[in-house]
């Protein structure tokens, strides 16, 4: 849970209050808090003068607009064919062992969520992952653990 304070109002000022403002507003909320709470979606609905069901209906269509709690750092491991051929499973095992969570779970301290995702466009440097917006490529089980540990120190 988080409290958006003035964020939704500020974002509506920034992006406008039309229907086409909806995606940029939701994306900015997710960028800051990593997922959308019911309260945040209701606030957005009020600002844009549309029903909360419309906001939820739109958000729930998009994989990156999460409506369930996510950690501060969302790790998405590419599972499409080339990454899968080039050792995705070893990358997932290494992350699971380091964070002691399974795919789909969030660490108890809410620092990391581990997910799988479809092709992220780095097949020539597979296996690849995204941590929040940042891609990491040409991974080995060792290098991915180093990267995760680096995020732990932040």
């Amino acid at each position: 849970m988080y409290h958006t304070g003035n964020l939704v109002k500020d974002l509506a000022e920034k992006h406008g209050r039309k229907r086409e403002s909806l995606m940029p507003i939701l994306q900015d909320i997710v960028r800051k808090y990593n997922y959308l709470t019911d309260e945040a979606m209701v606030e957005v609905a009020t600002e844009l003068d549309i029903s909360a069901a419309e906001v939820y209906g739109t958000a729930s269509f998009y994989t990156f607009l999460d409506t369930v709690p996510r950690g501060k750092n969302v790790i998405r491991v590419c599972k499409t064919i080339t990454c899968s051929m080039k050792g995705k499973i070893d990358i997932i095992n290494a992350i699971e062992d380091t964070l002691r969570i399974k795919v789909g779970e969030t660490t108890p301290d809410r620092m990391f969520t581990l997910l799988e995702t479809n092709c992220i466009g780095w097949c020539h440097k597979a296996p690849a992952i995204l941590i929040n917006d940042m891609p990491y490529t040409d991974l080995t089980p060792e290098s991915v653990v180093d990267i995760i540990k680096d995020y732990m120190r932040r």
Partner: protein
Amino acid sequence: MENKGLNKVDLIFEKIDAKSTLEKAFAMTNDQIIQQVLESGLKGRGGAGFPTGLKWKYTAAEKDPDKYIVCNADEGEPGTFKDREILDKAAYKVYGGMAIAGKAMGARKGYIYLRGEYSFLLPQLYMELYKFHKLISDIGYDFNIEYRMGSGAYICGEESALFESIEGFRGEPRNKPPYPTTSGLFAKPTSINNVETLVTAMMIIEKGADHYVKLGTKDSRGSKVFSISGDTPIPGIFELELGMTVQEFVNAFGDGDTKAVQVGGASGFCVPRKKFAETIIGFEGVPTGGSMKLFNSSRSMYNVLHNYLDFFAEESCGQCTPCRVGCQQLLKGVEMVKKGDAKSAYLTELVKLADTMKIASKCGLGQSVGNAFKSIVENFREEVIY
């Protein structure tokens, strides 16, 4: 069959003076620009291959004072990553291509829909955009571009789903007609072009259509940026002249043990070794948006097929039944055959289902699931069954 062999080209990433190309374009009449693009034979580089000049011509013919040029940068096809490289290395040419398209059609406003997975590029893209807007106003022309971001939905690469997403809705494809050229973004006449198409169009204006038609074959003019991955010692991004055979491609990029090449990503075609020599990469053979995946004999084609079907079952928007249910049933079906819970003849039923999806699905996603499905099942039946 025309065969050009394998030739490297440097058109897309070649450094040019954007100002002089834009001034050249703005000095031309709208008809002249469209005529150049028509004569070049350029077809859309996103994969579908609609003639770019025609798209511009239809949009230009609309009377509505508000029109849009939209750049489709929702590059989500598995195995495609060339648009990211183009935006990374030559964004100024993407912007330039949009301005030229806008001028030719009478659109003063452009949108770039960039997939969320490429958000990390935004700071540098905005810096380039700032320079571009300054250049355009220095030339004394009025044209503005805005970015809109995707949020992880493959289907938003479909043009009408992309419009829905920009408008703030679920990315569900619309019925066609009306086509985007008459009613696209915000129900206004819209030309939507792939990143590479726009850069190519700018290069056609720069070099002239007569220069461009020297490249490629009658059905597939020009060159193409290929995204090459899988079992290859040199994965990466290569610009090649169109008109080579799969065999020539494999000779250059294979690891000596290539048994199949998936051309055009998960929605494309699987070419087995025995057909390498006779298959041309292009619109006369196997078309591609650039995705080229090589598989060597250590790979199970069942795993490849399963991975693709899993992808489609997740990415189908769920709006129309043939695609929503079809993707799930194809996936379930091959799993049953593999486990022995269904007879191998069941694959024939699944092929019929894929054919039905091609006819009955609302958009390109459901219509093209059968491409990979049929070409893998027909060419690697044993691997799928046993």
